[in-house]
């Protein structure tokens, strides 16, 4: 079953705490993405991963880093979370550039 799985689905953290968002896919897709979604701003690209240990900044990478040690797994890390990082985070993956990315169900993060 083609699926992108995100964990956790909901997360509440205090300002200054570290945050780990995890994403997995079972399709052996090379390319994976992290987006954040905010009202009126749409889906903004944080990071792209082309394959294991091959990552590139997206449009809004500040305050985030990523890790991809296995093709099927892509993590988003917030070191010392800030209140303005409260958002819904989506992971997506695709096999090649003429395919549309397949999205996970999202993680709703609140930083208090």
């Amino acid at each position: 079953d083609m699926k992108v799985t995100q964990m956790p689905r909901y997360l509440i953290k205090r300002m200054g705490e570290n945050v780990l968002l995890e994403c997995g896919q079972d399709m052996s897709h090379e390319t994976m993405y992290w987006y954040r979604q905010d009202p009126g701003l749409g889906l903004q690209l944080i990071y792209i991963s082309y394959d294991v240990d091959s990552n590139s900044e997206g449009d809004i990478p500040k305050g985030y880093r990523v890790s991809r040690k296995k093709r099927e797994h892509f993590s988003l890390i917030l070191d010392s979370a800030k209140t303005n990082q409260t958002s819904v985070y989506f992971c997506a993956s695709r096999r090649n550039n003429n395919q549309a990315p397949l999205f996970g169900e999202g993680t709703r993060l609140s930083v208090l």
Partner: protein
Amino acid sequence: GDSVTQTEGLVTLTEGLPVMLNCTYQSTYSPFLFWYVQHLNEAPKLLLKSFTDNKRPEHQGFHATLHKSSSSFHLQKSSAQLSDSALYYCALSDRTGGYKVVFGSGTRLLVSP
């Protein structure tokens, strides 16, 4: 760089009326264009994708035509249904092999009885 513009933040319609959501884009090369639909508290899901030829993609009664001359990929449906109420995103992917997928800011469609 590549960009996608959706001019309407909110579109409100009465059930049965036609739907048209606007999407224009800027890209150095002829990109692939997509429409996604997102219902409340769900993931964005692919609705339509542009073809390499002139075929018009259709799904769930929605269709979109890629007009390269005007750089547009507007989403249309002849008759809106209550279940069409959702957030719609237009997106583009560079055809040359680039990995980036750029999304517009989204249009919320509200269909009332």
